[in-house]
């Protein structure tokens, strides 16, 4: 018995000693499954091929660790507390980027100066700003989901309207005008968007009246006429039937179902949604949906907002030069095009002007317009989810008549200010 136990312990020790160097040698990238699919082109519909192939031939295989945003964020931060991280490149959402978090990341200015990514200025400046703090760049954009105006052309024509609205205020008025009951007695609403768990789109409507509620430098614009006008417009839309009475429970599924069935005419959503909306197997209005940049706000700017995934190098990563070389490989113009062909939301405007992308991606023209002007809906915050919850709850309460827009402004100031970091 004693001998058996000793042998077992010896075997475990030997196994562990053999495995440790193997694990230590792996070049690990931690991101979402979609990043792996975009980079390696392994999805069925991918047309861009394996963008990492040449890099792997030179430097060896990549160990992809995939998970949800929370898992990636958690793992990266836990590893940051260790002497050495096992992760060489992390890919995470922009909302994770906030001053305290940047302390765990390698600043990338020197790498860009020494071994620059080609035509870096082609990448949206708004996306770069979202991960620049105190003059230092901490992350390189890899994937975006940018808002646009989607509309049902057939239903617009039915209402005698030939073109989508030119300004945001016109869009709100049009949404109210388009709302009616159809021949079957169903409510048809002029506008729809997701609201149940994320304030991204209500914030888009506020931005449509001139200012973002929270700027990228954490300025809170609650107490401005623009934000108040945005809140009043939301309330007006709700009370007049411009948006559904069920908008507070609106999810991605219900929004798509409403558009496909003709229960909503316009939506604030990503252009990529056109695929499912125009699918004849699922949509009663297949082929009728179009996408354009969101109409301009009073400043003449399209209030386009975006969610961006970024590539970062942990400060304690084992091989930072190698990590930069992979980031650079995935950020080059040709790589961005090939990843767009693998269904990635490209962060370079030029990718959407490439003939291959124009042929394969129906919304290439719209994305070419929206990506350069896109701004992060909420900048990176340690309390980002609490901020989202406050905004969703307050706007919901306003729509249901519990608060006036003016009261919501006061509540925003009271509840959001403590959650925002001091401005740099």
């Amino acid at each position: 018995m004693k001998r058996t136990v000793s042998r077992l312990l010896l075997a475990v020790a030997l196994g562990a000693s053999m495995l440790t160097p193997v694990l230590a040698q792996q070049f690990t990238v931690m991101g979402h499954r979609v990043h792996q699919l975009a980079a390696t082109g392994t999805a069925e519909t991918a047309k861009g091929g394996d963008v990492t192939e040449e890099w792997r031939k030179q430097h060896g295989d990549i160990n992809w660790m995939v998970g949800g945003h929370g898992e990636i964020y958690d793992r990266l931060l836990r590893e940051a507390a260790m002497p050495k991280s096992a992760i060489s490149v992390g890919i995470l959402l922009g909302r994770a980027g906030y001053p305290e978090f940047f302390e765990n990341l390698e600043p990338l200015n020197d790498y860009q100066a020494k071994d620059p990514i080609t035509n870096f200025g082609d990448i949206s400046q708004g996306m770069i700003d979202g991960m620049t703090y105190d003059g230092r760049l901490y992350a390189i954009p890899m994937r975006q989901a940018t808002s646009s105006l989607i509309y049902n052309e057939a239903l617009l024509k039915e209402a005698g309207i030939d073109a989508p609205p030119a300004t945001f205020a016109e869009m709100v008025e049009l949404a109210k005008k388009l709302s009616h009951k159809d021949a079957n007695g169903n409510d048809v609403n002029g506008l729809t968007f997701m609201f149940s768990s994320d304030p991204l789109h209500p914030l888009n409507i506020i931005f449509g009246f001139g200012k973002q509620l929270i700027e990228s430098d954490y300025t809170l614009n609650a107490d401005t006429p623009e934000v108040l006008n945005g809140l009043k417009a939301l309330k007006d839309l709700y009370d007049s039937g411009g948006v559904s009475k069920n908008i507070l429970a609106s999810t991605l599924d219900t929004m798509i179902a409403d558009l496909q069935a003709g229960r909503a005419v316009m939506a604030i959503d990503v252009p990529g949604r056109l695929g499912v909306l125009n699918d004849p197997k699922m949509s009663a209005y297949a082929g009728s949906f179009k996408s354009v940049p969101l109409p301009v706000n009073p400043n003449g700017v399209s209030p386009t907002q975006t969610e961006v995934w970024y590539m970062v190098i942990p400060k304690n990563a084992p091989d930072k030069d190698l990590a930069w070389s992979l980031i650079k490989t995935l950020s080059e113009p040709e790589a961005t095009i090939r990843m767009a062909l693998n269904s990635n939301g490209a962060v370079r405007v030029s990718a959407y002007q490439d003939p291959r992308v124009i042929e394969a991606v129906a919304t290439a023209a719209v994305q070419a317009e929206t990506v350069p002007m896109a701004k992060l809906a909420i900048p990176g915050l340690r309390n980002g989810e609490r901020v989202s919850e406050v905004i969703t709850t307050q706007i919901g309460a306003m729509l249901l008549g519990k608060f006036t827009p003016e009261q919501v402004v006061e509540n925003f100031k009271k509840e959001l200010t403590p959650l925002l970091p001091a401005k740099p």
Partner: protein
Amino acid sequence: MRAIHFLLLSPVLGLATIFLAGPALYVLWLSLTVSNYGMNAQFVGLQNYVTVLQDPGFWTAVVNTLIIVNVVVYVELILALGISLVVQRQSGLMRVLLFSAILVPYGISDVVGVMAWRFMSDPNFGILARGLASIGIDFNWTINPTLALILVTIISVWHHLPFTFVLVFAALVSVPKDMVEAAEVDGAGPFQRFWYIIFPFIVPAVLLAMLFRYVFGLRLFTEVWLLTNGGPMGMTEVLGTYLYKNAFRFGDFGAASATGWMMVVITLLLASPYLVKMYKGTFRDV
């Protein structure tokens, strides 16, 4: 008890310690710390408990949970008892068919079940909401927290009724027939036979069903999460969603752990009368 008894029990005790007591104690420790994603836990004593108890959202969640759980448990018991009595009177194929039909909701995944109910009760196009609208009842649960909680209760009863039914039905068929027949011969009516003969036999099963449903019910999550996400304005929050948001949306593991332990205390308080009753019933004759 001799040492050999402890030795033989030690594997089970060891497993119970590792898999039950271990995580519970770890969560207890977390509840006494401030801990976020990637942040090493820092001891803060009872601060999380104070913070949670001072949060109006927590009390909304407690009240909603207790209302839903109590309604669910008693409605389920009454329905299970009634259906069991009906099924018991059937025989052959009819009994099998009825039994199978009643068990179906338990075989449907939580998510699928809730999504089906959500679509059926969609105020715009749901067959249920439109049916109610046709008789003048506005069932727009998306803007009315009370209606949303009623819908959550209905879905919960629908989904878990088979569990209560199986326990009660099993107890019902085990009631000695000769005693029921003897009571009938002695002139006892249907109600008297049920109240004086059948019911005392099935009380232990009823208590067991209540106990389990209270424990499961307090963990209510899927129905609320998929229907309302706790909104509008946090008015449909229950303890399960409150805990989940704190842990996995806000990354506040200390507050979430404190909520978890308070759920344990609430569960024990609710379950203690039934546990005492069951304990006395089980060991009365020992």
